[in-house]
Protein backbone atom coordinates (compact mmCIF):
# COMPACT_ATOMS: atom_id res chain seq x y z
CA UNK A 1 0.00 0.00 0.00
CA UNK A 2 2.32 2.71 -1.19
CA UNK A 3 1.22 5.80 -2.94
CA UNK A 4 3.98 7.28 -4.99
CA UNK A 5 3.63 10.95 -5.66
CA UNK A 6 4.69 10.84 -9.35
CA UNK A 7 1.97 8.28 -10.13
CA UNK A 8 -0.65 10.75 -8.97
CA UNK A 9 0.52 13.39 -11.39
CA UNK A 10 -0.80 13.23 -14.89
CA UNK A 11 2.50 13.39 -16.75
CA UNK A 12 4.85 11.09 -18.73
CA UNK A 13 6.50 10.12 -15.43
CA UNK A 14 4.16 7.10 -15.34
CA UNK A 15 6.93 5.10 -17.04
CA UNK A 16 8.88 5.64 -13.84
CA UNK A 17 6.77 2.97 -12.14
CA UNK A 18 8.37 0.26 -14.30
CA UNK A 19 11.93 1.33 -13.75
CA UNK A 20 12.13 0.68 -9.99
CA UNK A 21 10.82 -2.90 -10.30
CA UNK A 22 13.43 -3.68 -12.97
CA UNK A 23 16.09 -2.14 -10.85
CA UNK A 24 14.94 -4.15 -7.85
CA UNK A 25 15.06 -7.40 -9.79
CA UNK A 26 18.56 -6.79 -11.03
CA UNK A 27 19.57 -5.88 -7.50
CA UNK A 28 18.22 -9.22 -6.29
CA UNK A 29 20.43 -10.93 -8.85
CA UNK A 30 23.39 -9.04 -7.55
CA UNK A 31 22.55 -10.18 -4.03
CA UNK A 32 22.76 -13.83 -5.07
CA UNK A 33 25.71 -13.21 -7.34
CA UNK A 34 28.19 -11.76 -4.88
CA UNK A 35 28.22 -14.73 -2.44
CA UNK A 36 28.57 -17.10 -5.39
CA UNK A 37 31.47 -15.08 -6.70
CA UNK A 38 33.13 -15.16 -3.30
CA UNK A 39 32.67 -18.94 -3.19
CA UNK A 40 34.24 -19.27 -6.62
CA UNK A 41 37.18 -17.05 -5.61
CA UNK A 42 37.63 -19.17 -2.49
CA UNK A 43 37.71 -22.36 -4.57
CA UNK A 44 40.08 -20.89 -7.14
CA UNK A 45 42.34 -19.58 -4.41
CA UNK A 46 42.58 -23.00 -2.79
CA UNK A 47 42.99 -24.99 -6.02
CA UNK A 48 45.74 -22.70 -7.30
CA UNK A 49 47.59 -22.94 -4.00
CA UNK A 50 47.25 -19.23 -3.21
CA UNK A 51 45.48 -20.19 -0.03
CA UNK A 52 47.36 -22.84 1.90
CA UNK A 53 45.34 -25.88 2.96
CA UNK A 54 46.58 -25.18 6.50
CA UNK A 55 44.83 -21.80 6.41
CA UNK A 56 41.47 -22.73 4.94
CA UNK A 57 39.98 -25.83 3.32
CA UNK A 58 38.62 -25.56 -0.21
CA UNK A 59 34.82 -25.62 -0.65
CA UNK A 60 35.11 -28.88 -2.58
CA UNK A 61 36.98 -30.46 0.31
CA UNK A 62 34.46 -29.15 2.84
CA UNK A 63 31.68 -30.79 0.83
CA UNK A 64 33.65 -34.04 0.68
CA UNK A 65 34.19 -34.05 4.45
CA UNK A 66 30.54 -33.26 5.01
CA UNK A 67 29.56 -36.29 2.87
CA UNK A 68 32.06 -38.46 4.70
CA UNK A 69 30.80 -37.38 8.14
CA UNK A 70 27.17 -37.95 7.21
CA UNK A 71 27.90 -41.29 5.51
CA UNK A 72 29.08 -42.95 8.73
CA UNK A 73 26.40 -41.18 10.79
CA UNK A 74 28.90 -39.30 12.95
CA UNK A 75 27.57 -35.86 12.09
CA UNK A 76 23.96 -36.86 12.72
CA UNK A 77 24.96 -38.34 16.07
CA UNK A 78 26.80 -35.21 17.22
CA UNK A 79 24.05 -32.97 15.93
CA UNK A 80 21.39 -34.93 17.82
CA UNK A 81 23.38 -34.75 21.03
CA UNK A 82 23.78 -30.99 20.69
CA UNK A 83 20.14 -30.53 19.77
CA UNK A 84 19.02 -32.44 22.82
CA UNK A 85 21.26 -30.33 25.09
CA UNK A 86 19.82 -27.14 23.66
CA UNK A 87 16.31 -28.53 23.98
CA UNK A 88 16.83 -29.45 27.62
CA UNK A 89 18.52 -26.18 28.47
CA UNK A 90 15.85 -24.14 26.69
CA UNK A 91 13.06 -26.04 28.43
CA UNK A 92 14.57 -25.25 31.81
CA UNK A 93 15.12 -21.63 30.80
CA UNK A 94 11.54 -21.27 29.54
CA UNK A 95 10.06 -22.77 32.69
CA UNK A 96 12.34 -20.92 35.09
CA UNK A 97 12.50 -17.58 33.28
CA UNK A 98 8.79 -17.67 32.46
CA UNK A 99 7.84 -18.57 36.02
CA UNK A 100 10.04 -15.92 37.61
CA UNK A 101 8.83 -13.28 35.15
CA UNK A 102 5.22 -14.13 35.98
CA UNK A 103 5.90 -13.83 39.70
CA UNK A 104 7.70 -10.51 39.46
CA UNK A 105 5.54 -9.14 36.64
CA UNK A 106 2.24 -9.84 38.35
CA UNK A 107 2.99 -8.92 41.96
CA UNK A 108 4.87 -6.10 43.64
CA UNK A 109 6.22 -8.45 46.29
CA UNK A 110 7.46 -10.78 43.57
CA UNK A 111 9.17 -7.86 41.89
CA UNK A 112 10.94 -6.84 45.08
CA UNK A 113 12.17 -10.35 45.79
CA UNK A 114 13.06 -11.51 42.27
CA UNK A 115 13.89 -8.60 40.04
CA UNK A 116 17.00 -7.20 41.75
CA UNK A 117 18.91 -10.53 41.93
CA UNK A 118 17.93 -11.32 38.34
CA UNK A 119 19.22 -7.95 37.16
CA UNK A 120 22.49 -8.58 39.00
CA UNK A 121 22.94 -12.15 37.78
CA UNK A 122 22.27 -11.29 34.17
CA UNK A 123 25.39 -9.14 34.00
CA UNK A 124 27.66 -12.10 34.83
CA UNK A 125 29.51 -13.44 31.81
CA UNK A 126 28.18 -16.98 31.59
CA UNK A 127 31.37 -18.36 30.07
CA UNK A 128 33.25 -17.29 33.20
CA UNK A 129 30.98 -19.64 35.13
CA UNK A 130 32.22 -22.76 33.32
CA UNK A 131 34.78 -23.60 36.06
CA UNK A 132 32.09 -23.26 38.72
CA UNK A 133 29.69 -25.42 36.82
CA UNK A 134 32.35 -28.12 36.46
CA UNK A 135 33.09 -28.00 40.18
CA UNK A 136 29.39 -28.07 41.09
CA UNK A 137 28.00 -30.41 38.45
CA UNK A 138 30.99 -32.52 37.36
CA UNK A 139 31.88 -33.15 33.74
CA UNK A 140 28.83 -35.03 32.48
CA UNK A 141 25.71 -33.75 30.77
CA UNK A 142 24.55 -31.59 33.68
CA UNK A 143 27.00 -28.69 33.43
CA UNK A 144 26.44 -28.38 29.68
CA UNK A 145 22.66 -28.26 29.98
CA UNK A 146 22.94 -25.97 33.01
CA UNK A 147 25.14 -23.51 31.12
CA UNK A 148 22.67 -23.35 28.26
CA UNK A 149 19.82 -22.83 30.74
CA UNK A 150 21.77 -20.20 32.64
CA UNK A 151 22.47 -18.19 29.50
CA UNK A 152 18.99 -18.56 27.99
CA UNK A 153 17.01 -17.76 31.11
CA UNK A 154 17.71 -14.02 31.20
CA UNK A 155 16.36 -12.89 27.83
CA UNK A 156 13.20 -14.87 28.54
CA UNK A 157 12.82 -13.40 32.01
CA UNK A 158 13.55 -9.83 30.96
CA UNK A 159 11.30 -9.73 27.93
CA UNK A 160 8.33 -11.47 29.52
CA UNK A 161 8.63 -9.26 32.60
CA UNK A 162 8.72 -6.05 30.61
CA UNK A 163 5.98 -7.40 28.31
CA UNK A 164 3.72 -7.94 31.31
CA UNK A 165 4.49 -4.51 32.70
CA UNK A 166 3.91 -2.98 29.28
CA UNK A 167 0.35 -4.24 28.82
CA UNK A 168 -2.02 -1.38 28.03
CA UNK A 169 -3.57 -0.26 31.36
CA UNK A 170 -6.71 0.72 29.45
CA UNK A 171 -7.29 -2.92 28.56
CA UNK A 172 -6.74 -3.92 32.18
CA UNK A 173 -9.32 -1.32 33.19
CA UNK A 174 -11.73 -2.71 30.64
CA UNK A 175 -11.28 -6.18 32.11
CA UNK A 176 -12.32 -4.69 35.45
CA UNK A 177 -15.43 -3.12 33.87
CA UNK A 178 -16.61 -6.41 32.38
CA UNK A 179 -15.86 -8.18 35.65
CA UNK A 180 -13.08 -10.58 34.64
CA UNK A 181 -11.56 -12.63 37.47
CA UNK A 182 -7.83 -12.27 38.15
CA UNK A 183 -7.18 -15.61 36.48
CA UNK A 184 -9.12 -14.62 33.37
CA UNK A 185 -7.38 -11.24 33.34
CA UNK A 186 -3.98 -12.92 33.26
CA UNK A 187 -5.01 -15.51 30.69
CA UNK A 188 -6.95 -13.30 28.28
CA UNK A 189 -5.39 -9.88 28.67
CA UNK A 190 -1.94 -9.86 30.28
CA UNK A 191 -0.27 -12.92 28.77
CA UNK A 192 -1.42 -12.33 25.18
CA UNK A 193 -0.41 -8.70 25.57
CA UNK A 194 3.06 -9.67 26.76
CA UNK A 195 3.56 -12.36 24.12
CA UNK A 196 4.99 -10.26 21.27
CA UNK A 197 7.77 -8.95 23.52
CA UNK A 198 8.36 -12.35 25.11
CA UNK A 199 8.83 -13.98 21.69
CA UNK A 200 11.70 -11.62 20.99
CA UNK A 201 13.29 -13.02 24.13
CA UNK A 202 12.75 -16.61 23.00
CA UNK A 203 14.43 -15.84 19.71
CA UNK A 204 17.36 -14.26 21.44
CA UNK A 205 17.64 -17.14 23.92
CA UNK A 206 17.73 -19.73 21.16
CA UNK A 207 20.58 -17.87 19.51
CA UNK A 208 22.51 -17.57 22.76
CA UNK A 209 22.03 -21.20 23.72
CA UNK A 210 23.89 -22.38 20.59
CA UNK A 211 26.64 -19.92 21.27
CA UNK A 212 27.10 -21.17 24.82
CA UNK A 213 26.88 -24.78 23.77
CA UNK A 214 29.90 -24.49 21.47
CA UNK A 215 31.94 -23.34 24.42
CA UNK A 216 30.42 -25.85 26.84
CA UNK A 217 31.02 -28.77 24.50
CA UNK A 218 34.69 -28.00 24.25
CA UNK A 219 35.18 -28.91 27.89
CA UNK A 220 35.35 -32.61 28.63
CA UNK A 221 32.81 -33.59 26.04
CA UNK A 222 32.80 -36.78 24.00
CA UNK A 223 30.01 -35.84 21.65
CA UNK A 224 28.22 -32.86 20.18
CA UNK A 225 29.11 -30.37 17.48
CA UNK A 226 31.41 -28.49 19.83
CA UNK A 227 33.31 -31.69 20.55
CA UNK A 228 33.51 -32.47 16.85
CA UNK A 229 35.10 -29.09 16.23
CA UNK A 230 37.43 -29.32 19.20
CA UNK A 231 38.57 -32.72 18.02
CA UNK A 232 39.07 -31.41 14.49
CA UNK A 233 41.20 -28.59 15.83
CA UNK A 234 43.49 -31.06 17.63
CA UNK A 235 44.03 -32.94 14.37
CA UNK A 236 44.28 -29.80 12.22
CA UNK A 237 41.20 -30.89 10.23
CA UNK A 238 40.32 -27.46 8.94
CA UNK A 239 37.74 -28.95 6.57
CA UNK A 240 35.77 -30.37 9.53
CA UNK A 241 36.04 -27.06 11.37
CA UNK A 242 34.41 -25.36 8.41
CA UNK A 243 31.69 -28.03 8.34
CA UNK A 244 31.02 -27.28 12.01
CA UNK A 245 30.77 -23.56 11.32
CA UNK A 246 28.34 -24.18 8.48
CA UNK A 247 26.21 -26.36 10.73
CA UNK A 248 26.00 -23.54 13.26
CA UNK A 249 25.06 -21.06 10.57
CA UNK A 250 22.42 -23.45 9.27
CA UNK A 251 21.00 -24.02 12.77
CA UNK A 252 20.80 -20.27 13.30
CA UNK A 253 18.72 -20.02 10.15
CA UNK A 254 16.46 -22.90 11.20
CA UNK A 255 15.87 -21.36 14.62
CA UNK A 256 15.01 -18.05 13.00
CA UNK A 257 12.53 -19.68 10.64
CA UNK A 258 10.99 -21.61 13.52
CA UNK A 259 10.45 -18.51 15.65
CA UNK A 260 9.09 -16.54 12.70
CA UNK A 261 6.64 -19.33 12.06
CA UNK A 262 5.64 -19.26 15.74
CA UNK A 263 5.15 -15.50 15.56
CA UNK A 264 2.96 -15.79 12.51
CA UNK A 265 0.79 -18.37 14.24
CA UNK A 266 0.61 -16.78 17.68
CA UNK A 267 0.48 -13.16 16.60
CA UNK A 268 -1.90 -13.56 13.66
CA UNK A 269 -3.94 -10.69 15.09
CA UNK A 270 -1.20 -8.09 14.71
CA UNK A 271 -1.91 -5.37 12.13
CA UNK A 272 1.29 -6.18 10.22
CA UNK A 273 0.28 -9.83 9.79
CA UNK A 274 -3.39 -9.09 9.22
CA UNK A 275 -2.53 -6.64 6.46
CA UNK A 276 -0.03 -9.01 4.90
CA UNK A 277 -2.70 -11.73 4.73
CA UNK A 278 -5.33 -9.44 3.22
Amino acid at each position, binding site marked *: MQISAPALLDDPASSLSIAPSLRRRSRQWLRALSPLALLALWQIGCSSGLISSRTLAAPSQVIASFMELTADGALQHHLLVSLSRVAKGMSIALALGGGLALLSGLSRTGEYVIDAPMQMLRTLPVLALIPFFIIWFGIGEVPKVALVAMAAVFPIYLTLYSGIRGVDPKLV*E*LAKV*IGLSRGALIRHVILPGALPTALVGVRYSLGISWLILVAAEQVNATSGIGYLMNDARDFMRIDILVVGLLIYAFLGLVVDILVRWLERRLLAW*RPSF*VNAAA
Partner: protein
Amino acid sequence: MKNRMVNVRGVSRLFGKTLALDNVNLGIESGEFVALLGRSGSGKSTLLRSLAGLDTPSAGIVQVPNERMVVFQEPRLLPWKTAIQNVELGLRGNRATELARSALAEVGLEHRLHAYPATLSGGEAQRAALARALVRDPKLLLLDEPFAALDALTRMRMHALIESLWKRHHLSVLLITHDVDEAILLADRALVIDRGRIIASIIIDLPRPRELSQPGFLFLRKQLLGAIGVTDTQLPKSTAADSQPTPESTVLPRSIAMA
Protein backbone atom coordinates in the same frame (compact mmCIF):
# COMPACT_ATOMS: atom_id res chain seq x y z
CA MET B 1 -38.43 8.64 42.91
CA LYS B 2 -38.91 4.91 43.28
CA ASN B 3 -37.31 4.14 39.91
CA ARG B 4 -34.16 6.13 40.43
CA MET B 5 -31.27 4.34 38.73
CA VAL B 6 -28.40 6.58 39.77
CA ASN B 7 -28.22 8.59 42.95
CA VAL B 8 -25.17 10.77 43.53
CA ARG B 9 -25.16 12.92 46.66
CA GLY B 10 -22.52 15.43 47.65
CA VAL B 11 -19.71 13.77 45.74
CA SER B 12 -16.30 15.44 45.75
CA ARG B 13 -13.01 14.24 44.36
CA LEU B 14 -9.62 15.66 45.09
CA PHE B 15 -6.56 14.99 42.96
CA GLY B 16 -3.74 16.39 45.04
CA LYS B 17 -4.86 19.99 45.55
CA THR B 18 -7.18 20.10 42.54
CA LEU B 19 -10.88 19.67 43.15
CA ALA B 20 -12.09 17.63 40.16
CA LEU B 21 -15.60 17.17 41.55
CA ASP B 22 -17.08 19.69 43.94
CA ASN B 23 -20.17 18.55 45.85
CA VAL B 24 -21.96 17.02 42.86
CA ASN B 25 -25.57 15.85 43.06
CA LEU B 26 -27.03 13.81 40.24
CA GLY B 27 -30.06 11.60 39.77
CA ILE B 28 -30.88 9.50 36.72
CA GLU B 29 -34.30 7.90 36.43
CA SER B 30 -34.86 4.45 35.02
CA GLY B 31 -34.95 4.72 31.24
CA GLU B 32 -33.70 8.29 31.22
CA PHE B 33 -31.09 9.50 28.73
CA VAL B 34 -28.85 12.12 30.30
CA ALA B 35 -26.07 13.98 28.53
CA LEU B 36 -23.24 15.54 30.48
CA LEU B 37 -21.53 18.42 28.74
CA GLY B 38 -18.34 20.11 29.71
CA ARG B 39 -14.96 21.25 28.50
CA SER B 40 -11.81 19.18 28.88
CA GLY B 41 -10.84 19.06 32.52
CA SER B 42 -14.31 20.05 33.73
CA GLY B 43 -14.62 16.85 35.75
CA LYS B 44 -17.06 15.04 33.47
CA SER B 45 -14.87 11.97 33.01
CA THR B 46 -14.12 11.82 36.73
CA LEU B 47 -17.84 11.73 37.44
CA LEU B 48 -18.37 8.92 34.94
CA ARG B 49 -15.45 6.96 36.34
CA SER B 50 -16.87 7.14 39.84
CA LEU B 51 -20.23 5.89 38.53
CA ALA B 52 -18.38 3.07 36.76
CA GLY B 53 -16.60 2.09 39.96
CA LEU B 54 -13.22 2.93 38.43
CA ASP B 55 -12.59 5.82 40.77
CA THR B 56 -13.48 6.32 44.43
CA PRO B 57 -14.74 9.77 45.41
CA SER B 58 -13.08 11.58 48.29
CA ALA B 59 -16.48 12.33 49.81
CA GLY B 60 -20.16 11.68 49.18
CA ILE B 61 -22.47 8.85 48.21
CA VAL B 62 -22.71 7.08 44.84
CA GLN B 63 -25.56 4.65 44.36
CA VAL B 64 -25.55 2.79 41.06
CA PRO B 65 -26.90 -0.58 39.91
CA ASN B 66 -24.42 -3.42 39.68
CA GLU B 67 -25.59 -4.01 36.12
CA ARG B 68 -23.66 -1.15 34.56
CA MET B 69 -21.37 -1.05 31.56
CA VAL B 70 -19.02 1.49 30.08
CA VAL B 71 -18.15 2.29 26.49
CA PHE B 72 -15.03 4.43 26.30
CA GLN B 73 -13.82 6.83 23.67
CA GLU B 74 -11.45 4.13 22.39
CA PRO B 75 -13.14 0.79 21.70
CA ARG B 76 -10.67 -1.06 23.97
CA LEU B 77 -11.10 -4.34 22.12
CA LEU B 78 -8.45 -6.96 22.86
CA PRO B 79 -6.44 -6.95 19.61
CA TRP B 80 -5.67 -10.69 19.87
CA LYS B 81 -9.32 -11.71 19.96
CA THR B 82 -11.85 -11.61 17.15
CA ALA B 83 -14.95 -9.45 17.42
CA ILE B 84 -17.08 -12.28 18.74
CA GLN B 85 -14.39 -13.47 21.18
CA ASN B 86 -14.18 -9.94 22.52
CA VAL B 87 -17.92 -9.76 23.04
CA GLU B 88 -18.23 -13.13 24.75
CA LEU B 89 -15.18 -12.67 26.97
CA GLY B 90 -16.14 -13.19 30.60
CA LEU B 91 -19.67 -14.43 29.87
CA ARG B 92 -20.62 -17.59 31.69
CA GLY B 93 -22.81 -20.45 30.53
CA ASN B 94 -23.00 -22.41 27.32
CA ARG B 95 -25.08 -19.81 25.49
CA ALA B 96 -22.26 -17.26 25.59
CA THR B 97 -21.32 -17.58 21.93
CA GLU B 98 -24.93 -17.44 20.84
CA LEU B 99 -25.58 -14.32 22.92
CA ALA B 100 -22.45 -12.67 21.60
CA ARG B 101 -23.49 -13.41 18.04
CA SER B 102 -26.92 -11.89 18.47
CA ALA B 103 -25.47 -8.82 20.22
CA LEU B 104 -23.13 -8.27 17.29
CA ALA B 105 -26.01 -8.78 14.89
CA GLU B 106 -27.99 -6.16 16.76
CA VAL B 107 -25.30 -3.54 16.17
CA GLY B 108 -25.04 -4.59 12.52
CA LEU B 109 -21.79 -6.54 12.68
CA GLU B 110 -23.01 -10.06 11.86
CA HIS B 111 -20.69 -10.08 8.84
CA ARG B 112 -17.58 -9.24 10.91
CA LEU B 113 -17.92 -11.83 13.70
CA HIS B 114 -14.48 -13.34 13.18
CA ALA B 115 -12.60 -10.20 12.22
CA TYR B 116 -9.68 -9.03 14.30
CA PRO B 117 -9.96 -5.48 15.68
CA ALA B 118 -7.06 -4.37 13.50
CA THR B 119 -9.25 -4.96 10.45
CA LEU B 120 -12.32 -3.15 11.79
CA SER B 121 -13.02 0.47 10.92
CA GLY B 122 -13.38 2.97 13.75
CA GLY B 123 -17.16 2.80 13.61
CA GLU B 124 -17.21 -1.00 13.47
CA ALA B 125 -14.85 -1.27 16.42
CA GLN B 126 -17.01 1.10 18.45
CA ARG B 127 -20.11 -0.93 17.55
CA ALA B 128 -18.35 -4.10 18.71
CA ALA B 129 -17.57 -2.32 21.98
CA LEU B 130 -21.27 -1.45 22.26
CA ALA B 131 -22.22 -5.08 21.65
CA ARG B 132 -19.80 -6.15 24.37
CA ALA B 133 -21.58 -3.81 26.78
CA LEU B 134 -25.12 -4.79 25.70
CA VAL B 135 -24.54 -8.53 25.87
CA ARG B 136 -24.10 -8.14 29.64
CA ASP B 137 -27.65 -6.79 29.87
CA PRO B 138 -26.87 -3.55 31.72
CA LYS B 139 -29.46 -1.32 33.37
CA LEU B 140 -27.11 1.65 33.21
CA LEU B 141 -24.96 2.41 30.19
CA LEU B 142 -22.13 4.89 30.70
CA LEU B 143 -20.79 6.39 27.47
CA ASP B 144 -17.53 8.32 27.73
CA GLU B 145 -17.35 10.37 24.52
CA PRO B 146 -17.80 7.22 22.45
CA PHE B 147 -18.26 9.06 19.14
CA ALA B 148 -15.56 11.68 19.54
CA ALA B 149 -13.01 9.85 17.39
CA LEU B 150 -15.44 8.98 14.57
CA ASP B 151 -16.02 10.84 11.32
CA ALA B 152 -19.19 12.91 10.98
CA LEU B 153 -21.10 10.41 8.84
CA THR B 154 -20.28 7.45 11.07
CA ARG B 155 -21.19 9.54 14.08
CA MET B 156 -24.67 10.19 12.68
CA ARG B 157 -25.23 6.45 12.19
CA MET B 158 -24.01 5.76 15.70
CA HIS B 159 -26.45 8.33 17.09
CA ALA B 160 -29.35 6.50 15.46
CA LEU B 161 -28.02 3.15 16.71
CA ILE B 162 -27.62 4.35 20.29
CA GLU B 163 -31.11 5.81 20.30
CA SER B 164 -32.69 2.59 19.06
CA LEU B 165 -30.71 0.43 21.52
CA TRP B 166 -31.64 2.76 24.37
CA LYS B 167 -35.33 2.37 23.55
CA ARG B 168 -35.27 -1.37 22.92
CA HIS B 169 -33.32 -2.28 26.05
CA HIS B 170 -34.96 0.29 28.39
CA LEU B 171 -31.54 1.55 29.38
CA SER B 172 -30.63 4.44 31.56
CA VAL B 173 -27.83 6.26 29.76
CA LEU B 174 -25.26 8.80 30.85
CA LEU B 175 -23.53 10.18 27.76
CA ILE B 176 -20.47 12.32 28.20
CA THR B 177 -19.82 14.62 25.30
CA HIS B 178 -18.46 17.99 24.38
CA ASP B 179 -20.76 18.20 21.37
CA VAL B 180 -23.83 20.31 22.10
CA ASP B 181 -25.72 19.06 19.03
CA GLU B 182 -25.11 15.46 20.03
CA ALA B 183 -26.57 16.14 23.47
CA ILE B 184 -29.69 17.80 22.02
CA LEU B 185 -30.18 15.02 19.44
CA LEU B 186 -30.09 12.20 21.98
CA ALA B 187 -30.76 13.25 25.56
CA ASP B 188 -33.87 13.82 27.66
CA ARG B 189 -31.85 16.14 29.82
CA ALA B 190 -28.52 17.87 29.39
CA LEU B 191 -26.31 18.74 32.31
CA VAL B 192 -23.45 21.18 32.09
CA ILE B 193 -20.45 20.63 34.33
CA ASP B 194 -17.76 23.23 34.90
CA ARG B 195 -14.84 23.11 37.32
CA GLY B 196 -16.32 20.10 39.07
CA ARG B 197 -19.78 21.57 39.60
CA ILE B 198 -22.99 20.90 37.72
CA ILE B 199 -23.98 24.42 36.74
CA ALA B 200 -27.01 23.81 34.53
CA SER B 201 -29.68 21.20 33.88
CA ILE B 202 -31.77 21.68 30.79
CA ILE B 203 -34.74 19.49 29.85
CA ILE B 204 -34.80 18.60 26.16
CA ASP B 205 -38.38 17.80 25.22
CA LEU B 206 -38.18 17.88 21.44
CA PRO B 207 -40.11 15.04 19.77
CA ARG B 208 -38.02 12.14 18.48
CA PRO B 209 -36.50 11.34 16.03
CA ARG B 210 -34.74 14.66 16.22
CA GLU B 211 -32.81 16.58 13.63
CA LEU B 212 -30.78 19.77 13.54
CA SER B 213 -33.41 21.66 11.50
CA GLN B 214 -36.16 20.95 14.01
CA PRO B 215 -37.98 23.96 15.50
CA GLY B 216 -36.65 24.61 18.94
CA PHE B 217 -33.27 23.03 18.24
CA LEU B 218 -31.45 26.31 17.77
CA PHE B 219 -33.01 27.77 20.87
CA LEU B 220 -31.81 24.81 22.96
CA ARG B 221 -28.39 25.04 21.46
CA LYS B 222 -28.13 28.74 22.32
CA GLN B 223 -29.31 27.96 25.83
CA LEU B 224 -26.76 25.19 26.30
CA LEU B 225 -23.90 27.14 24.78
CA GLY B 226 -24.81 30.00 27.06
CA ALA B 227 -24.63 27.69 30.04
CA ILE B 228 -21.22 26.47 28.95
CA GLY B 229 -20.16 30.09 28.59
CA VAL B 230 -19.80 30.36 24.84
CA THR B 231 -21.75 33.09 23.07
CA ASP B 232 -22.79 32.86 19.43
CA THR B 233 -20.38 35.53 18.27
CA GLN B 234 -17.45 33.39 19.37
CA LEU B 235 -18.61 30.52 17.22
CA PRO B 236 -18.55 29.82 13.54
CA LYS B 237 -21.89 28.34 12.48
CA SER B 238 -22.73 24.86 13.78
CA THR B 239 -19.65 23.75 15.64
CA ALA B 240 -19.11 22.09 18.95
CA ALA B 241 -18.70 23.84 22.27
CA ASP B 242 -14.99 23.32 22.69
CA SER B 243 -13.80 25.96 20.29
CA GLN B 244 -12.10 28.21 22.79
CA PRO B 245 -8.71 29.20 21.45
CA THR B 246 -6.23 26.67 22.70
CA PRO B 247 -2.57 27.45 23.37
CA GLU B 248 -1.64 25.63 20.15
CA SER B 249 -3.96 27.66 17.96
CA THR B 250 -2.72 30.95 19.38
CA VAL B 251 0.88 29.91 18.80
CA LEU B 252 0.27 28.62 15.30
CA PRO B 253 0.06 31.92 13.35
CA ARG B 254 3.35 33.03 14.82
CA SER B 255 5.12 29.86 13.73
CA ILE B 256 3.67 30.19 10.26
CA ALA B 257 4.89 33.77 10.08
CA MET B 258 8.37 32.63 10.98
CA ALA B 259 8.43 29.91 8.33
